[in-house]
């Protein structure tokens, strides 16, 4: 990198750093103009629309939060899609076993059981990567299959429907006027942001993503760090499963499958890199909102819903291109 980057170059660099914000503003403006011209209505300034976007974004975000930490550390967790499903099914089964009279205590116990199932998957992932040196892409692809199979087996291959007002409140209730999933997403985002930017754990995660030798020679227990990362990732995935069961009054093995790819996309749109060492929770939040806006906006504008896959796919490619040009501008990673 030159000692005095020219003004234009540094301007371009800062633009690349905030491109996801710009992109979000751009698509919001696009859908607003589209709505005004086509229907004479507003897209953005309607509570129902905002709420729908917020809920969709929350579902993606909760799954993406723990994943962000894992990706910053230079790894990936593909198992989360079915960790979500496993937690959802376990929670539903416990409530069903308890019968229709299940009260709050049962629901809370069911949720704990769901999280526990997720933690087991997280521990296995961490153990594979930390102790057996299995590349995380392969290791978590394996547990993806295991979690999927386990969820289908315990659910008997079917969706486990439940009748519980308490569970419904978890998925559909309000806290101070905000839908519960949105509140959960906000709280978890704040916690993960704190962990990543203000704690030793966060610094070691970034350092691990940049160079394993740097943290190892600093005396950090890298194995413990890796296990912690995969457990956190599994826990946020599990929480997303609990919300699913609450929202739909049913646990399904494939609860997380449709949003797994979106969660991965949100992290990369948010500025993370497959090589590790970069990425932020704020970025992932923006990434999740971008995807939710695209999803809802396309439905809103009456296009066949399948276009959302194409649109999100294109955004992922743009995100990767932005990351590459950023890397080139900072002189490559050595």
């Amino acid at each position: 990198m030159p000692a005095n980057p020219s003004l234009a170059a540094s301007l371009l660099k800062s633009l690349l750093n905030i491109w996801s914000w710009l992109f979000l503003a751009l698509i919001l403006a696009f859908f607003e103009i589209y709505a005004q011209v086509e229907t004479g209505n507003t897209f953005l300034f309607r509570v129902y629309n905002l709420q729908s976007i917020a809920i969709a974004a929350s579902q993606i975000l909760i799954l993406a939060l723990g994943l962000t930490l894992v990706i910053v550390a230079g790894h990936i967790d593909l198992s989360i899609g079915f960790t979500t499903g496993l937690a959802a099914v376990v929670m539903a089964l416990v409530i069903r076993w308890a019968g229709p009279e299940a009260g709050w205590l049962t629901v809370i116990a069911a949720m704990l059981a769901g999280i526990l199932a997720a933690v087991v998957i997280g521990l296995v992932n961490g153990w594979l990567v930390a102790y057996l040196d299995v590349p995380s892409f392969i290791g978590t692809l394996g547990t993806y299959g295991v979690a999927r199979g386990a969820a289908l087996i315990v659910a008997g291959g079917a969706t486990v429907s439940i009748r519980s007002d308490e569970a419904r409140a978890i998925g559909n209730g309000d806290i101070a006027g905000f839908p519960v999933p949105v509140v959960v997403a906000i709280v978890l985002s704040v916690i993960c942001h704190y962990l990543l930017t203000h704690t030793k754990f966060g610094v070691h995660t970034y350092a691990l993503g940049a160079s394993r030798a740097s943290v190892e020679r600093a005396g950090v227990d890298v194995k413990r760090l890796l296990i912690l990362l995969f457990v956190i990732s599994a826990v946020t995935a599990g929480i997303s499963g609990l919300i699913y069961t609450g929202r739909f009054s049913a646990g399904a093995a494939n609860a997380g499958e449709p949003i797994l790819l979106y969660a991965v996309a949100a992290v990369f749109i948010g500025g993370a890199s497959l090589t590790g060492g970069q990425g932020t929770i704020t970025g992932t939040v923006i990434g999740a909102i971008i995807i939710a806006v695209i999803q809802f906006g396309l439905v809103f504008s009456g296009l066949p819903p399948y276009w959302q896959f194409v649109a999100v796919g294109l955004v992922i490619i743009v995100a990767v291109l932005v990351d590459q040009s950023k890397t080139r501008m900072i002189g490559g990673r050595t």
Partner: protein
Amino acid sequence: MTPLLEARGLKKRFGGNEAVSDVNFVVNAGECVVLAGDNGAGKSTVIKMISGVHAPTAGEVHFDGELLTGKTPEGVRTAGIETIYQDLSLADNLDPGLNLYLGREKIRHVLGLPFLDRAAMRRDAAEVMKGLGIELPDPAAPVRDLSGGQRQAIAIARAVHWQAKLVIMDEPTAALGVPEQREVMALIHRLKEKGVGIILISHNLPDIFAAADRIIVLARGVVGGERRPAETTDEEIVRLMMGAHA
């Protein structure tokens, strides 16, 4: 004067291959000893036996009045020996402050919650670097934005800041341009002024003569010769590196 570090009869065998046969030398405080030798002469193996990475097959290392052999790499660091590897072990995406404190970060509490004290760590880094004669243009910039010489200085600053009594440097100038090589040489002199002992691994003759108080030449796993720079020449050192016995 008792030496700061003393290696006695170090030997290391890997399977049937004897990488180091019988190595003896001492390092005094404030002295820079260069371990010179061709590739495969056993320089790295000797260093790893000191830093605790390898256990010697025979022989022992004494440091600052205690037996070092048998300690873990962590224990050796705690005893006061810092090893700076060629890759510097820096986290490129973090600022100098966080790199200085990596693994021992400064924490302040806000409402009972621990928060990293980034500002304090940055200030300390800038100060330690200043003590080494290096002014950081932007203390908040990630380390990857710095020059090779400045990055080397951060690795050295880490050793200085944590009160290392002996610093082992593995080919510190290998990947650097000429001006940066000079910076590193200046850093080595400042470390010596602070009374820190240095073991420098090198096979670059100008570096060897610029930095060394004593040159220990390794050849095929034994000490081929020990010279003071003023008493020897390039040719003699090369001859010793090639394995000719003096």
